[in-house]
């Protein structure tokens, strides 16, 4: 459709190459299939502990990371599988971590809540709600002092925005004009607590003026809207103009964790949000603008499924840590 006015073409289509868009689609699908695979392994008892799935939030993770390179950092959350994949992680090493194996990203010591990929700039998920907020500011401070040009993106949830750490982190980032982007994934609930009951403000982005930083709120299920809003914040951070707060309104399809009975929300509400599936939106956009065909997508989908299967196999067949090494990595081994 070469005649369409530019303003009718979504930001993402206007901005990114077909390769980049195809890769973004693949990553979104990879996250979805990864989470489904993890859920299945968990249900089969192959993974222990707990697990916070991000199904329904794929556009937010992938869209937000579009403007980042491996040199840029992210801090992630307990619901961090999507961020990790969006930042370029290898799903085989992720599964290996969930299986508690030595080949995992954390050598089996961290599990889902601490999944990280430092080489790609992911400083780690965090078991503490809000724990990553000041750490992100610190990474941005280091980037500024060391003149690396890197930007740090800090993911956090609507629940985390009521932690004191949120306030302190945003305030410091602003007074020091640091290159950090605060990305709030507002999925309407902190565990069972609805935003309306926990948060004294209609939109999390409305808290940005309290830190004299730009605040925007967009549909977190719309890949292009996410990318547009976050790219702007990343550019401004990179240009030395300081931090921004971007709210991505989205929804988690699954319960908070594996023990959630979903008593705090209705089936209708869940169904309503499932109808706004970010993957469906992404596919439709790519089809409409001729970036990918149905056939391309089927091919990607098949390859993603194979990747997940192989990853699970890799994880299953990897070795676990030696018990004798239980205290290894507590301190840096000064001898080595």
């Amino acid at each position, binding site marked *: 459709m070469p005649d369409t006015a530019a303003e009718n073409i979504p930001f993402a289509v206007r901005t990114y190459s077909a390769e980049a868009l195809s890769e973004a689609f693949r990553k979104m699908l990879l996250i979805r299939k990864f989470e489904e695979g993890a859920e299945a392994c968990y249900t089969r008892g192959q993974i222990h502990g707990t697990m916070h799935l991000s199904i329904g939030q794929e556009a937010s993770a992938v869209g937000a990371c579009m403007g980042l390179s491996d040199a840029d950092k992210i801090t992630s959350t307990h619901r961090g599988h999507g961020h990790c994949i969006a930042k370029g992680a290898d799903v085989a090493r992720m599964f290996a971590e969930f299986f508690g*194996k030595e080949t995992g990203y954390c050598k089996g*010591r961290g599990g889902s809540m601490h999944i990280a990929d430092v080489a790609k700039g992911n400083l780690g998920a965090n078991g503490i709600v809000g724990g990553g907020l000041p750490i992100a500011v610190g990474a941005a401070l280091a980037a500024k002092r060391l003149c690396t040009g890197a930007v740090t993106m800090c993911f956090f949830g609507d629940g985390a925005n*009521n*932690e*004191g750490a949120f306030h302190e982190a945003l305030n410091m980032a602003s007074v020091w004009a640091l290159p950090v982007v605060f990305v709030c994934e507002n999925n309407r609930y902190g565990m069972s607590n609805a935003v309306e009951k926990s948060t004294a403000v209609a939109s999390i982005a409305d808290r940005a003026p309290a830190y004299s930083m730009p605040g925007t709120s967009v549909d977190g299920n719309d890949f292009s809207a996410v990318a547009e809003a976050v790219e702007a914040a990343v550019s401004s951070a990179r240009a030395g103009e300081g931090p921004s707060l971007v709210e991505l309104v989205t929804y988690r399809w699954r319960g908070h964790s594996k023990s*959630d009975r979903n*008593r705090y929300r209705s089936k209708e509400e869940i169904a309503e949000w499932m109808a706004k599936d970010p993957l469906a939106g992404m596919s439709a956009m790519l089809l409409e603008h001729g970036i990918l065909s149905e056939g391309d997508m089927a091919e990607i989908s098949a390859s993603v499924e194979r990747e997940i299967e192989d990853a699970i196999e890799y994880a299953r067949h990897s070795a*676990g840590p030696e*018990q004798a090494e*239980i205290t290894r990595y507590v301190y840096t081994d000064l001898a080595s």
Partner: protein
Amino acid sequence: MNVQADAVRTLSYAEALREAMDIALGADQRVVLIGEDIGIYGGAFQVTGDLVEKYGEDRVMDMPISELGGAGVAVGAAMTGLRPIFEFQFSDFATLAMEQIVNQAAKVRYMLGGAVSVPLVMRFPAGSGTGAAAQHSQSLEAWFGHVPGLKVVQPATPEDAKGLLLAALEDPDPVMIFEHKLLYKTRGPVPEGAYLTPIGKASLRREGRDLTIVATAIMVQKALEAAEVLAGEGVDAEVIDLRTIRPIDRETVLESVRKTGRLLCVYEAVKTLGIGAEISAMVAESDAFDFLDAPIVRLGGAECPIPYNPDLERAAVPQVADIIAGATDLAQGRT
């Protein structure tokens, strides 16, 4: 409150805690529960369960994820007439509220020369064993044992869970209850109605002649299991459930050590500076020192964060086999 116990039935540890809160909410309008997801969700470990349905959201209050502020709210409310029971979703999150717990709740009565008190009960799901890794599995009770102004209990049975919670509510000062997560589903006899398990009193769980095992929380169950095996091997272990970390029941421990001459302390927290250090030091500086026939042995957690991998996680804290081995060595040690 009726302090007489009636009939006996079996409840889980979580149910026993809930029953205590139910009794308190029913008996005293000043009692409120405050915590994260303790309402419709029923608590991360289903301890509050359906109490919100019975007492409403004004008495069973879901709070924002704001541990420091929430604890402070509980302190302020306790200072001015309420009787809050504050639930930390995991004891690890106490790290966010140390200011209010240690600088305010523990000290305000003293700093104000007795002009106020802080009748605050705080509940802490604690310990490892659920695969939740380093930030959701800590045993931090020893920190609070170091803080004058606080009382700290670690119930090991459903009966004590209920009785200590009710006792904490009767106490005019702040009481912290550390509840081991793996105990929540364990069952045991629990008297009906209201009764008080005294804070500051240890419980002799098993008499024995050869050595004294002082254990806390879930280690009490493990020590009792170990003691059965040891009995078969000719070692007669006395098992003391310490129950209260602060103030410690000195006399019960010393009396036992005077009798057996050997002491093994078992606790899940990191060994260094865990409660076993205090028990050991308390005995070593007492008259019971003269009765010691062998070094005092501590079995505590490994010197590492709790690992995610399940085998490592188990290896990070004392297990029944470790207690058996430790006790056997100790019993055979020099006299």
